[in-house]
């Protein structure tokens, strides 16, 4: 029973307005820009975005007015700095105001981990003394029943949807992820619904040949989207490198709301899907980003 579908269909079927979505969970690589751009084209509204460091994707979705709430550790542009759309939303309510619940990378991961373990919360000593727990009502300052010492309780966070980007998947959603993992597994296991985006679709036997490399159980996956270059301009280990220039260009052009609208028109609204986006990038740019040197993992024998 194949779960393959287009990004358009996956977003239309599995991302309702108002959904909470974990995305960009591998940190800087494997950011699902193709997914984000489709959310914008379908004018999804009132979304909650959940993530660790969120490099540029969250800023784009905020600028497009899709988002009402952020539960994340960082919103900006990792190699460039501030996120201008994020700033405009918070400082000026443009294009709309935003509720921010600030986390750190560890605590957003713990919140998803707790959900993945069916644990109501996980206690940590991180962020004690920080203002973050005062700002974010998701947290509860408490004391350990073991010795009375202060602890921060991080309640479980269960996203409606997790968008998991991988290198390769079979049609059922059994998938291999390698390189940076970030909080991909925690997000997948915590979510109600999983949408997988893969650079390559492969036979089930390829995945089953190395079950330790599988990122999570395919029974959670509702849609498998085959989307080559789906993470551009972020990197996919073994497939393509980060397009630093695109991050710099976005940063420059989106200093004003008008600049952002023009950028959006050029790279999202006037582009029907990722195939068209890839064509727009052009062969030369794609070639400059492709893997220059292959580095294969040492052989592993599962025989018996």
């Amino acid at each position: 029973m194949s779960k393959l579908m287009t990004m358009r269909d996956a977003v239309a079927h599995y991302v309702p307005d108002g959904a909470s979505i974990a995305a960009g969970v591998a940190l800087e690589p494997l950011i699902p820009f193709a997914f984000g751009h489709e959310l914008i084209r379908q004018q999804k509204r009132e979304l909650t975005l959940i993530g660790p460091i969120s490099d540029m994707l969250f800023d784009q979705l905020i600028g497009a007015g899709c988002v009402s709430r952020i539960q994340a550790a960082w919103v900006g542009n990792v190699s460039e700095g501030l996120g201008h759309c994020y700033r405009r939303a918070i400082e000026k309510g443009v294009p709309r105001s935003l509720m921010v619940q600030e986390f750190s990378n560890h605590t957003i991961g713990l919140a998803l981990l707790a959900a993945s373990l069916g644990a109501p919360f996980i206690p940590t000593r991180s962020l004690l003394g920080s203002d973050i727990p005062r700002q974010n009502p998701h947290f509860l300052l408490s004391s350990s029943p073991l010795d009375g010492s202060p602890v921060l309780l991080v309640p479980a966070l269960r996203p409606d949807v997790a968008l998991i980007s991988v290198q390769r998947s079979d049609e059922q959603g059994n998938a291999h992820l390698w390189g940076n993992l970030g909080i991909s597994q925690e997000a997948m296991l915590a979510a109600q619904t999983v949408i997988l985006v893969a650079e390559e679709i492969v036979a089930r036997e390829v995945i089953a040949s190395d079950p330790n490399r599988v990122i999570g159980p395919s029974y959670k996956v509702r849609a498998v989207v085959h989307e080559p270059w789906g993470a551009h301009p972020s990197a996919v280990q073994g497939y393509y490198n980060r397009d630093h220039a695109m991050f710099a260009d976005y940063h420059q052009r989106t200093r004003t709301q008008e600049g952002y609208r023009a950028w959006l028109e050029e790279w999202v609204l006037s582009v029907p899907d990722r195939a068209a986006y890839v064509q727009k990038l052009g062969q030369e740019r794609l070639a400059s980003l492709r893997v220059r040197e292959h580095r294969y993992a040492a052989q592993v024998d599962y025989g018996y």
Partner: protein
Amino acid sequence: MPATHYSPRELMVVCAAREIRDGENVFVGMRLPLLAFALAKRTHAPNCIGLFEAGIVRDTPSSELLYTMGDAPNITDALWTTGTVTLLGLMAAGDVQLGFIGGAEIDRYGNLNTSVIGNWRDRPRVRLPGSGGGADIASLAQRLAIIMPHERHRFRERVDFVTSPGYGYPDEHGPAGVSWRKRVGLPRGGPVALITTMAVFIFDPETGEALLQSYHPGTSIEQIQEQTDWPLRLAPSCRETKPPTEEELRLIRECDPHGVWTA
């Protein structure tokens, strides 16, 4: 032999490298600390280990300059590439001797703000990106080194929002400093160095206050005071910052030949 021509950031890299001791597990950030790790590794701390919150452990610097810690070259020759929670969990358990972070604002007690300038409850003046892993590193590393541009609007008597806890504030239960960290329940840690474009500060663990330890060649205590919104206190041994050696500069420039981070 001390060098004479170097950029302020090159000096900062050298100062940061001096905080790393051999054999330590160092939570490396991006940009300058990354260069400091590479420099320490090739000089006095060949056995130090670098940890990255993306989930990476390395014992060699990346062979290429990184724009993000998740860039592919940072995975190549890594000793371990795991999940973020697992890696930060090891820091929570006490495995990280030294962490580096930066910030938009800092105050005299080493508290850092990377979240909001202005009133965080209502519409703030500037929305900054947020903690990332910074607040975790400030909370959990055994020692914290902070790297920042030295500008008066960043060096404030009190930050608008404590993203990453330093030594807190004096309150009705006691002073700032190590005792404040104990009071709020932090398991260890606190800033040991604040490395700026103008100076290096250490911290008094009793009061939590930053003490001017050294001023960079070409600056003066007066100039530093001008760019600092609290009355400076000097460390007893306060003196000029030791400049980089030619060898240190050579190694830094090998890592960043085009001055992407150090120009």
